[in-house]
């Protein structure tokens, strides 16, 4: 595990290269090293060596990114705290993680009653990028709290070993990154895709372009791509839905890699997007926070022959050191081509939810795999694998509604609705009505229109129990803080 010393080396080797571009202002790796060193000095004087889990206020500035690297060099983990999240949620997270010290780059501290280090106001210190000598592979790099279905956030702790395993597996995919690259970082730091978006560039001395919080994300991304000729971008597919009406205005020949993660990636939109980025390799990567950022990969083929299911591009094959299996309700592996829940194992897998034995019992299980007792994580994703080992995403296991006793995949309803509605975006929702039976609702991103024709067409393609019984229109789909379509909010439209 050389992750931390690799970070050190890359920073030192690239002093004269740009590390960040934040609000049109550049910071070199030398500047970055200086900020890291200043924060280190403060941590060494005011934080006990044994205190390893530290809160981090997630602002969009050099100090916040430097804080992460600083904590790692000190062998400590960060827990991102988004100042825009409800106060109660942040306090629940702080309490659960046992946070005493918070690094905060704001002018005035966001959280009272903790040992806050205001990272913008620190005196200059001598540059010191040497990791402390007591860092072990099993030490934590971060804990991300994801929303739990019961309302209490679940903490996902990730060790340096898992993070290092992820970076090694990523490099093995052959997507090349050098210190000449310009990379997009579009994610809130409370979303683990952000870890990829800053860590991969830092490890290669590339420049990271962030998005100010007060900007409209999708149009700002477009400007960064065009004005700064970005070469590398990981995005959520929702961005494409917003950009789609403007695809004819986008031409970015400098883009070399365009990766997608976090949601189902529609094949037709990907085809159109590929024309906006004539020279880019497009890839669909997949993985839950529990398995460190992402753990399967598929490279889109420009010449066609891409695998898809219900219009959703395949998520490809497991990356190095990750094992994927698809199981039935009794944890038995299903035959090739059969449906089941995707389960993951390997170096990237978390040791389990933070202090949450109950959830751990639900989500993790041991199973004999190739003669070895192996721990697997249930993703909640319904998948199937084909003869060549490519995994097709069918939908969430929980979205697999039971209607009148029939199993229904909501993605199939979405697929046929979109096909009928020419490029309109739709979401199918299963909800319980007043009689406590499950109905299917369809939300269409559009002005209101007559839906008789749509329903007639659906009836020619779907069995009667899959036809939506209620339809709602919204002008724009709401997004959650991770930038994905907020299905929970859409569900509230039905009752």
């Amino acid at each position, binding site marked *: 595990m050389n992750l931390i010393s690799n970070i050190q080396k890359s920073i030192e080797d690239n002093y004269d290269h740009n590390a960040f571009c934040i609000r049109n202002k550049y910071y070199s790796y030398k500047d970055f090293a200086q900020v890291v060193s200043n924060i280190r000095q403060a941590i060494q004087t005011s934080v006990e060596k044994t205190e390893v889990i530290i809160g981090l206020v997630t602002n969009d500035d050099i100090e916040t990114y430097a804080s992460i690297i600083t904590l790692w060099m000190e062998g400590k983990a960060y827990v991102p705290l988004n100042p825009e999240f409800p106060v109660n949620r942040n306090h629940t997270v702080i309490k659960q993680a046992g946070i005493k010290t918070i690094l905060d780059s704001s002018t005035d501290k966001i959280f009272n009653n903790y040992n806050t280090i205001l990272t913008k106001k620190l005196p200059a210190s001598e540059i010191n990028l040497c990791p402390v000598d007591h860092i072990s592979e099993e030490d934590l790099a971060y804990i991300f709290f994801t929303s739990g279905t019961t309302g209490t956030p679940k903490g996902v702790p990730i060790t340096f070993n898992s993070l290092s395993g992820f970076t090694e597996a990523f490099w093995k995919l052959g997507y090349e990154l050098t210190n000449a690259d310009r990379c997009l970082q579009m994610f809130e730091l409370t979303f683990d895709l952000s870890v990829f978006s800053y860590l991969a560039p830092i490890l290669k001395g590339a420049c990271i372009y962030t998005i100010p919080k*007060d900007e409209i994300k999708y149009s*700002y991304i477009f*400007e960064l791509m065009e004005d700064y000729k970005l070469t590398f971008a990981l995005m959520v597919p929702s961005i494409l839905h917003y950009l789609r009406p*403007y695809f004819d205005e986008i031409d970015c020949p400098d883009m070399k890699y365009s990766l997608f993660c976090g949601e189902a990636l529609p094949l037709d939109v990907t085809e159109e997007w590929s024309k906006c980025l004539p020279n880019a390799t497009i890839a669909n990567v997949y993985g839950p926070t529990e398995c460190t950022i992402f753990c399967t990969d598929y490279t889109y083929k420009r010449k066609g022959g891409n695998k898809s299911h219900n219009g959703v591009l395949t998520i490809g094959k497991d990356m190095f050191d990750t094992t994927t299996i698809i199981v039935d309700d009794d944890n038995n592996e299903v035959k090739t081509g059969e449906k089941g829940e995707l389960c993951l194992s390997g170096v990237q897998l978390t040791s389990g939810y933070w202090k949450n034995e109950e959830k751990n019992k639900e989500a993790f299980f041991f199973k004999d795999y190739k003669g070895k007792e192996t721990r697997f994580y249930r993703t909640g994703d319904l998948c199937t694998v084909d003869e060549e080992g490519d995994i097709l995403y069918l939908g969430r296991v929980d979205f697999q509604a039971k209607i009148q006793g029939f199993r229904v995949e909501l993605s199939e309803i979405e697929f046929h609705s979109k096909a009928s509605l020419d490029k309109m975006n739709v979401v199918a929702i299963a909800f319980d009505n007043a009689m406590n039976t499950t109905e299917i609702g369809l939300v269409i991103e559009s002005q209101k229109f007559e839906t008789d024709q749509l329903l007639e067409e659906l009836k020619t393609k779907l069995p009667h129990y899959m036809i939506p019984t209620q339809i709602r229109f919204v002008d724009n789909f*709401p*997004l959650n803080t991770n930038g994905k379509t907020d299905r929970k909010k859409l569900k509230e439209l039905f009752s």
Partner: protein
Amino acid sequence: METTEIKEKISEALESVLGHSNFETNDELTAQDVDGWDSLSHMMIITKIEEQFDIKFKLRDLNKLKNLGSLVSVIQGKI
């Protein structure tokens, strides 16, 4: 079209999307000053304004619409 007329039409669009008119239509008005004008309603407001003036914004225009004054001048350039 007169600036005042453009502003009137814009505030109609804002009112129809946001459901209130608790804002002053001066040039310095920004999304932060108006209740409910966030990144989501921004897109609905943009669509509404496009309809009202029968114009189409370019992707690049969207980032320029930082305050009412710049919104008015972008619209003036299109009608």
